[in-house]
């Protein structure tokens, strides 16, 4: 190998170099901005985490698996995974091998950005060597891998169902510029290297191209044109990158250490949240996952579009989209980059002005009858609309011989979660304080909750000293395991619905299923556990109309009926009430289902 030109420069590298410089400057400024926006404590936490060896190794592993291999996409759909990792990993290897070649053959030029990228133009082959052939074959192999990925990407535009996706994101203008220039880069590289294959050498990809069009290709006039085109495609992509979804490529490198340091979202578009927003690749996996996609007109309010509006700082749309959301958290569960959309939405809601002068000075007038039970049962507001919940819980408690007291018999005060979901955290603090006072003063050691919504807020927001908060699915499953509660097995098939706040919110999936298995068979829903579909009744949404909710509920019921159950079981009175309106089979509460197994 030897250099073809003494100066080692040609004007065609300029578009690439300008684009590269632009991206680098943009990213460095962005990095400094994000770091400066972080609160001091977070900044310290991030800096400290970088020097913990375990954490540093985890960062490197995550960067390799998430940025290059796209493991989560492989798990979702192998074709989708192959498409992304072939482009990302293949391109990465082309860049790395280009640098290695430069280091080996012309170490003096290794400092130049463009040299490894346009290596084949600047170098000339003199004789074959094993080492040289290895690089020729390897480079062509990775080019082939990338090209196969690009071909799949083009096919995905026509048939997304082949990749297991029903809907994909509508791209913005800059996204399109980025996409088409990305598609152009690799075929152009193939052609450009084909032009110089007669001089610089090549392998199974580039030499055949060169041989096919021998006369045209060997004309030196045409060579620079091909390389110019390749460089322009690269430059266009680089200039479009910061304004398009391809910003996720550099942003994810920053996001991974931040995530591993355990930072929290404190502002919807600053610091950690900003890093997440730039890392969103607009893949659109969240569109199919969103329960709102049951009706077409709400598709535009899904997380991927919210992220776009947050990026543009469009306050009106941001608020409207956030107010509509059910806050079920499914988009977060399917997200490839774990975008914490729940937290981002909560911060947006907390900033929204409603002019609500909520006053809770009447709370002190609420004085529940003091009981002596070791278990304090809190049924929650919603249970007063589904009296069967409380009735069944009391029946089971009596059957197990537990001494209990009900805290909110004849009306209690709300747990505070609906207020928190409406972004009124400060007002909710009044309720939390009053409830804490009552619970701690009761002398009970267990707070039994039969509502998933209440359970989540008791777990997340309350600091109850000496009182264990338990959801009734956990509690009754415990009683069953200890043998304090005995149930007879019937022959009904139950389909268990995971309430959003209990499943994705608190991670309780197995206890209710284990308990239900003692009274009957389980009929799994089509999508369950972390993938469970919201019932549509969620108090998380502020603006969804009754009609939109009905569409969501119907879609969710169809999901529950997947394996032909006799009963739909849910562990949340809100889901129970919502499902009952639309379900063709009987919908029962978890405790009610357990009561089926009690000796009559």
């Amino acid at each position, binding site marked *: 190998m030897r250099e073809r030109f003494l100066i080692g420069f040609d004007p065609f590298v300029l578009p690439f170099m300008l684009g590269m410089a632009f991206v680098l400057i943009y990213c460095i400024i962005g990095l400094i901005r994000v770091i400066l926006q972080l609160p001091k404590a977070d900044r310290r936490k991030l800096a400290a985490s970088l020097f913990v060896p375990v954490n540093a190794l985890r960062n490197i592993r995550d960067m390799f698996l998430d940025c290059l291999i796209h493991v989560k996409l492989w798990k979702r759909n192998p074709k989708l995974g192959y498409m992304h990792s072939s482009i990302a990993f293949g391109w990465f290897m082309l860049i790395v091998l280009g640098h290695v070649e430069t280091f080996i053959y012309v170490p003096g030029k290794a400092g130049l950005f463009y040299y490894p990228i346009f290596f084949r133009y600047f170098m000339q082959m003199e004789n074959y060597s094993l080492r040289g052939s290895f690089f020729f074959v390897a480079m062509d192999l990775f080019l082939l891998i990338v090209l196969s990925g690009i071909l799949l990407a083009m096919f995905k535009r026509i048939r997304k169902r082949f990749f297991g996706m029903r809907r994909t994101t509508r791209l913005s203008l800059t996204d399109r510029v980025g996409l088409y220039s990305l598609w152009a880069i690799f075929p152009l590289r193939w052609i450009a290297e084909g032009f110089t294959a007669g001089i610089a050498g090549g392998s199974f990809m580039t030499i055949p191209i060169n041989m096919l069009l021998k006369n045209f290709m060997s004309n030196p006039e045409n060579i620079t044109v091909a390389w110019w085109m390749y460089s322009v495609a690269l430059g266009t992509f680089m200039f479009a990158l910061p304004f398009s979804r391809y910003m996720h490529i550099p942003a994810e490198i920053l996001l991974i250490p931040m995530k591993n340091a355990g930072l929290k979202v404190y502002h919807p578009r600053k610091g950690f949240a900003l890093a997440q927003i730039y890392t969103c690749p607009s893949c659109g996996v969240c569109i199919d996952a969103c329960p709102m996609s049951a009706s077409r007109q709400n598709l535009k309010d899904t997380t991927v579009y919210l992220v776009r509006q947050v990026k543009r700082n469009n306050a009106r749309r941001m608020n409207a989209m956030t*107010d509509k959301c059910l806050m079920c958290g499914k988009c977060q569960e399917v997200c490839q980059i774990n975008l914490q959309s729940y937290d981002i939405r909560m911060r947006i809601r907390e900033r929204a002005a409603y002019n609500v002068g909520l006053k809770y000075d009447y709370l002190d007038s609420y004085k529940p009858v003091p009981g002596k039970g070791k278990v304090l049962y809190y049924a929650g*507001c*919603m249970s007063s*609309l589904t009296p069967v919940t409380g009735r069944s819980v009391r029946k089971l408690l009596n059957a197990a011989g537990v001494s209990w007291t009900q805290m909110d018999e004849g009306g209690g*005060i709300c747990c505070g979660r609906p207020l928190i979901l409406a972004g009124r955290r400060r007002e909710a603090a009044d309720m939390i304080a009053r409830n804490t006072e009552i619970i701690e003063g009761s002398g009970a050691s267990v707070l039994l909750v039969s509502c998933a919504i209440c359970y989540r807020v008791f777990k997340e927001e309350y600091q109850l000293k000496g009182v264990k908060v338990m959801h009734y699915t956990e509690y009754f499953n415990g009683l069953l395991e200890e043998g304090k509660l005995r149930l007879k097995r019937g022959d009904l098939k139950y389909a268990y619905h995971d309430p959003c706040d209990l499943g994705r919110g608190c991670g309780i999936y197995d206890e209710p299923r284990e308990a239900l298995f003692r009274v009957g068979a389980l009929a799994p829903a089509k999508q369950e556990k972390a993938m469970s579909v919201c019932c549509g009744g969620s108090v998380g949404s*502020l603006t969804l109309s*009754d009609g939109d909710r009905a569409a969501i509920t119907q879609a969710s019921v169809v999901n529950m009926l997947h394996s032909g159950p006799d009963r739909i079981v849910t562990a949340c009175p809100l889901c129970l009430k919502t499902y009952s309106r639309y379900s063709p089979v009987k919908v029962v509460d978890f405790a009610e289902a357990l009561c089926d197994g009690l000796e009559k």
Partner: protein
Amino acid sequence: MIDFGYSLSKSNALKIENLDDSRFKALHKLEPDAYKCIGCGSCTASCSAGVFTELSLRKTLLSLQRGEGKGYIDQLQSCMLCGKCMLVCPRGINTRHLILSICKIYSVEQ
């Protein structure tokens, strides 16, 4: 006159030319369900806060429709936004958003 222990109350009649429903129209724009109410009172019957206070969404909405509403906006401040009224409403009115919207539009008075 013989005092029978009751008397005729003052007329409740509204003078339509005095009715100022501009704000109610604004409310309807913000929450299209505002005109759907049939005044059945299910919301009031199921209200968590209504156990402790005078809060009644039915009365509030009715008086706002009449261009009044004095005193009723204050009552809304005790709402806990628990959403039970939304579940029981036979007309499927999004009551939580209705309450937030009322506060947004009428709070200028306060």
